[in-house]
C-alpha cells in the first residue's frame, strides 16, 4: 500500500520542465559570492594536470578575445546573468582541478569522439581537453593491467571528489555476464556500481548511458538500461543526445566547478539549461511549420527552399534539446540545418518511438502482445472499421429479424 502511495506521490511531484530564467537579483548576488569563494578554494589547490588552457588555446589559434566571447556565450547558455562571465572564464581555467574518470560500457565511443574532435576543435572541446582526465580507456596511453592499476589509484586518490562520466548502456538482462571489463571479469553493472560509489556525481553522457539508447531498442537483447536505473543514492546528471553535445558536457562540468553543485535538472535528470526547450521552439524552419509549408519528399522544391521537415518525420516538436541554438562543430550547422529532421535522440526510447521518417500519425505501434506492428492511424482506422462492420451487421440483422418481435404488452 505504502509503495503504491509512494509511486502516486512521485507521479505528481516529479520536477517539471519549466525553466526559470530569472531568479531575481538577491539570488544571483548570493550565488556570485558562493561561486567566488568556491573558485578561490579551487585556485589554492594544486592543478591535477599541468596543461595550461591559454597555452593550448594559443596553439590552436584562439586569442583572449575569442576565449572571452566563448565565456560570455557559455554564461548565457548556463542561464546566468552576464556579470558571471569572468567567473565562467576563470572556472574554465580551473577545470583541471576537477578529476574526471570516464568509463565506456555498451557504446560506440561516439561521445568520446564528439569530445575529442581533433579536426578544428572548438573552444568547448579544448576546454574539455584540459579537464583532469584521470582515466579514459580510449584516450590514455597505458592498457591492460597498467590501465587497471591507474584506475584503482585514481579511485583511491580522489575518493568522493571525482566526476564519473559514463558512456554506454548497462546490460542487466540475460547474458549480461558476457559484458565484462578487465582481467577479473567484472560485469559492466558491478564495474559501474563500484566506480559510482566513490564519485562526487555521476554524469551519463549520450543516449545509451542515459536511457539505454540504441542497445535498448526493441527487442533489447541485452536488457540494456541507463545509469539512473542502476546507480541509486548518488547525484546523477543525464546529458542525452547521440552524441551528447560537447557544449553541454562543458556546461555541466563548468557548473560543477563554479558552484560545486550539479545544475538544476528536469524530471529525466537532464540539466534544464540545455534540455529546457524543444528543438521546435528555436528551430529556424519554424515559420514554415506555422505556414504549413512542408518538405513532401527528399529533394523536392520544398527541400530546396528549407521548408519544415515535419512531414519527413521531424520530431523537433517533441524533443527537448538545445541543438537548434548551440548547434554542432563550432556552431557550423546541425541536423535540421542540413535538411533532415530531428530523430529525437535526446528522448527516452528514441530509437523505437522517434527515429522514423514519417509523422507521428504514421508511426508503427507495437501491439502489446508483440509481433504485429501497426501505424497509429491504421490502428485507429482499423477500430473504426470494426465498429462500422459491427453496426452494419446489426443494422442488417435489425432489418431482417427486428420486424418479427413485438413491444411488450402490445399485440401485433
Amino acid at each position, binding site marked *: 500500500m505504502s509503495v503504491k502511495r509512494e509511486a502516486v506521490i512521485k507521479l505528481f511531484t516529479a520536477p*517539471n*520542465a519549466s525553466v526559470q*530564467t530569472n531568479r531575481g537579483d538577491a539570488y544571483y548576488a548570493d550565488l556570485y559570492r558562493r561561486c567566488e569563494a568556491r573558485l578561490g578554494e579551487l585556485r589554492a589547490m594544486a592543478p591535477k594536470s599541468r596543461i595550461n588552457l591559454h597555452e593550448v588555446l594559443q596553439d590552436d589559434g584562439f586569442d583572449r578575445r575569442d576565449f572571452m566571447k566563448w565565456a560570455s556565450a557559455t554564461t548565457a547558455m548556463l542561464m546566468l546573468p552576464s556579470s558571471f562571465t569572468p567567473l565562467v572564464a576563470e572556472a574554465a581555467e580551473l577545470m583541471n582541478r576537477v578529476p574526471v574518470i570516464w568509463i565506456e560500457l555498451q557504446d560506440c565511443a561516439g561521445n568520446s569522439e564528439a569530445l575529442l574532435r581533433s579536426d578544428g576543435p572548438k573552444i568547448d572541446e579544448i576546454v574539455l581537453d584540459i579537464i583532469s582526465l584521470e582515466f579514459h580507456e580510449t584516450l590514455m596511453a597505458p592498457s591492460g593491467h597498467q590501465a587497471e592499476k591507474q584506475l584503482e589509484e585514481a579511485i583511491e586518490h580522489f575518493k568522493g571528489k571525482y566526476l564519473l562520466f559514463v558512456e554506454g548502456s548497462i546490460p542487466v538482462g540475460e547474458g549480461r555476464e558476457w559484458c565484462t571489463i578487465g582481467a577479473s571479469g567484472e560485469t559492466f553493472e558491478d564495474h559501474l556500481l563500484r566506480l559510482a560509489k566513490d564519485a562526487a556525481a555521476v554524469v551519463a553522457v549520450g543516449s545509451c548511458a542515459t536511457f539505454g539508447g540504441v542497445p535498448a531498442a526493441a527487442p533489447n537483447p541485452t536488457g540494456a538500461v541507463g545509469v539512473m536505473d542502476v546507480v541509486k543514492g548518488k547525484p546523477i546528471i543525464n546529458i542525452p543526445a547521440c552524441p551528447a553535445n560537447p557544449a553541454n558536457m562543458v556546461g555541466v562540468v563548468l557548473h560543477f566547478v563554479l558552484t560545486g553543485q550539479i545544475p538544476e535538472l528536469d524530471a529525466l535528470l537532464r540539466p534544464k539549461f540545455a534540455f529546457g526547450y524543444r528543438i521546435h521552439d528555436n528551430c529556424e524552419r519554424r515559420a514554415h511549420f506555422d505556414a504549413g509549408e512542408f518538405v513532401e519528399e527528399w529533394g523536392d522544391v520544398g527541400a530546396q527552399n528549407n521548408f519544415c521537415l515535419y512531414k519527413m518525420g521531424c520530431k523537433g516538436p517533441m524533443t*527537448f534539446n538545445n541543438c537548434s541554438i548551440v548547434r554542432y562543430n563550432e556552431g557550423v550547422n546541425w541536423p535540421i540545418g542540413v535538411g533532415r529532421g530531428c530523430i529525437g535522440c535526446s528522448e527516452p526510447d528514441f530509437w523505437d518511438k522517434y527515429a522514423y521518417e514519417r*509523422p507521428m500519425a504514421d508511426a508503427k505501434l507495437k501491439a502489446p502482445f508483440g509481433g504485429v506492428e501497426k501505424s*497509429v492511424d491504421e490502428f485507429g482506422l482499423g477500430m473504426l472499421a470494426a*465498429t462500422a462492420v459491427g453496426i452494419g451487421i446489426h443494422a442488417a440483422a435489425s432489418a431482417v*429479424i427486428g420486424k418479427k418481435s413485438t413491444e411488450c404488452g402490445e*399485440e401485433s
Partner: protein
Amino acid sequence: MKTKRPFQRVERMTPTMRVIHWVNVVAVVAAVVTGLYIAHPYYQTFMADPAVDKYVMAWNRLVHLFAAITVDITSIWVAYMYASGDRHKPWMKLIPSKENVVEFFEVVLNIFTFNRRKKFDTTHMDSFNAFWFALLHLLLVFMLLTGLQMYVQGLASGESSIGAWWPWILHVSTDWTLTVFGGNMGVRYAHHLGMWATVIWTMFHIYVQIWRTIFWQEGDIAIAFGGSKFPKKRRE
C-alpha cells in the same frame, strides 16, 4: 385486435441543452478535422503564397485549441446539469443500483436481440445512454489532459501571456501523463488514439439513436432537434 395507445409528447432537452449538443458536435468535428492535420498535414498550401500570408498550421492549431476549449466549457456545463436537473438528476442514472443495472442490460438486450420490449420507463433518459454519455465526457477529460501536456511543452520558459500560474497548473495537472503513457511521444499516441475513440463513440451514438427511433418508434432522434420525443402512453 390491435390495442392502440395515444402518443404523448415528452420534453427531454431544453433549448440550452440542444444548443450545447450542437455546439459540441461542431467543436468535436472541428477538433478532429484540425487534429488530423496537426498530426499529419494532409493537404498542401500554395507554394506561391509567401509564408507570412498562409499560416495554415497556425490556423489549424488555433481552431483545434478553441474547439477544445469549447468542448471543455460545455462539459463543465453538462456536468452541472447532470447534478442539478430539476425534473430528474441524470447522474443518478450512473449509480450501479439494481434498478439501473437492470435497465442498462435491458437496453443492451433490446439492442442485441433486436427487441422492442421496453420493460422500463422510456420517457426519461435510460441508464445505458447515461453511461454512454458519461463515457464521452471521460474521453474528453482524457483528451484535455493529454492535449494540455503537449501544449505546455511549448511554454517551457514557465511564462505565458496570462502569467506563470497557467503553465504551473498545466504541469501539476498533466505531467503524470508523461509517466503513464511513456514520454512525450507516448502522450501523443494516446491523444491521437483518443481521437479515434471519440469518432467511434460518435458513430455508435448516432447509430443507436437512429436504431431506437426506427425500432422503438418513440421518435428519439427528434430530441436533439425539437427537444421532445413521442412515446406511447404507458398502460396504467
